[in-house]
């Protein structure tokens, strides 16, 4: 079985996540797009683990999941605080700091 389709799929997912981060306004959606990028990396890691026939990539995927979970904890806490203060989760509204 060829591995190319999986790598292509992971690249497509990564690109969707990347474009999403750059274009979406809502902090939660931006954050979901970052998670999509991380999961695209997981797919690539697992595919390469199969190509090389060792387990490093699969172990790394587990670590990425744990790190992503920790990031969710911190990220949602920050987004929650901003939302409660400003009544909006739009990343465009938070614009006091500029130039």
């Amino acid at each position, binding site marked *: 079985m060829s591995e190319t389709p999986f*790598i292509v799929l*992971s690249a497509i997912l*990564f690109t969707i*996540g*990347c474009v999403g*981060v750059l274009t979406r306004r809502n*902090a939660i959606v*931006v*954050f979901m797009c*970052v998670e999509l*990028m*991380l999961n*695209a*990396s997981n797919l*690539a*890691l697992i*595919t*390469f683990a199969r*190509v*090389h026939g*060792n387990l*490093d*990539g699969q*172990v*790394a995927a587990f*670590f*990425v999941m744990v*790190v992503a979970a*920790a*990031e969710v904890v*911190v*990220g949602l*806490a*920050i*987004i929650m*605080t*901003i939302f*409660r*203060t*400003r009544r909006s989760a739009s*990343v465009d509204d*938070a*614009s*006091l*700091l*500029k*130039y």
Partner: protein
Amino acid sequence: MSSAAVLAAEFQAPSFEYSLLSPLLVIFGVAITGVLVEAFAPRGSRYLLQAVLAVLGVVGALVATVIVGLNLVSRGGGTAHGSIAAEGAIAVDGPSIFIWGTVLVLSLVSVLLFAERRLEGGVLSFAGQAAALPGTEAEREASTRGLEHTEVFPLMMFAVGGMMLFPASNDLLTMFVALEVLSLPLYLLCGLARRRRLLSQEAALKYFMLGAFSSGFFIYGIALVYGYAGSMNFAAISAAVSGRAGGEGLLLGGIALLAVGMMFKVGAAPFHAWTPDVYQGAPTAVTAFMAACTKVAAFGALLRLFYVAFGGARWDWTPMVWVIAILTMVVGSVLALSQTDVKRMLAYSSIAHAGFLLTGFVGAQQVADVGIGEITSLQAVLFYLVTYGFTTVAAFAVVTVVRDAGGEATHLSRWSGLGKESPVVAGVFAVLLLGMAGIPLTSGFTGKWAVFTTALAGGAWPLVVTAVLFSVVAAFFYVRVIVLMYFSDPVGEGPTVATPSILTTIVIAVGFAATLALGVVPGPVLDLAAAAGEFIR
């Protein structure tokens, strides 16, 4: 034999060099103890417990670092010495020890800045209750009851642990985990200012969003490099790169994506956009800590990743770093000219410094080319990081004492006439600014000298010319602040200089002394940097 028995016979318990890793273990142990203190100690005693614990922890880790550093064994001839620990995950070598020492000393200074209570009238300069909304009854109540978040100390210790692990990691996975361990506590700390909380929360949001975005690039880069080399270990990657394993596209893509993640952390253009916003919005103690220690740790990791793992592909990544270095110097120096906020100006100055450091990084004078009395670019960058770290921490510490009714007076117009109000503070700040500008007899000059001469010896003269030109541009905006402090009349009531407790005074004194001492007698620290030798492979 059953299959379970076969597996059990094959299984080898991993060996873990506890003594070599003791500095890391001490810091993480202190961080976890700090969490327990937060859970079990009564509120009244937490501040003292946490502050003492943090100081003792950092001092303990520093002692452990010195002991480990004195007992490193030579490895593979040359100037490299040290050992690979934790089953190949962590490299404890000369540069690691040097960076650990630098990060720990700067953290020790920053802990004192965190623990300052007199400037805010008996409470920490962090939000009394982060969950209370700004401007509400709950916030006023938290303020009258004198609540404070002593959690900042364990959070800081976790960040310090991450900063020590980051430059010492010897495989990509450890590096990624370390990156997150150092970043996540910093995202939270940025949002915890007591005053100007909207700015602080906004800084936390921006730092978090962009940080998470850049770590997405970092991990995809790891995946591609793993796909190329079939291993996460730096030695294996280096072997694959030298042997031209095939599939160069994967390698180049991986290097580029990893560089994006790294350049974000060091604050190099065009990935610098978060730096001014976060440095301005974050509590000043956190900014000082972040500006100094994160940059040291991130440059350590950058050097190890690119020299050890991708050293064989030097010709592929050098042009990219040239472009980034020049862009960073231009953006940092030019945009700093138009700043009206002192924290923001220092942020752009730190971007410019990242550019100067990248000049040393890419100039790449190797061990083999070094004449007698010369140092390699690795050692020059390490020395520059020390000089930069002390000056930066002290400069931000000075920012915390210049205040008005609304807290810190960070707008530059409030600083005019500071020389008349407080000659000592203005004088110290002037010396620190001259140090950053790189005037002779200050640490900035010796640091720049070390970095630029190695880059020149490495053949990167166009970069060095650019760097010198933009040092001049940078000197202009530093001097502008000095002129403002001494030759302008105060606007309105003028600035007031609050008297800090002994803690902040120590920070400013140490930074000031280091700025002058490293400028006049740089020898000992340069010797230390030279003794750090090279990375082990």
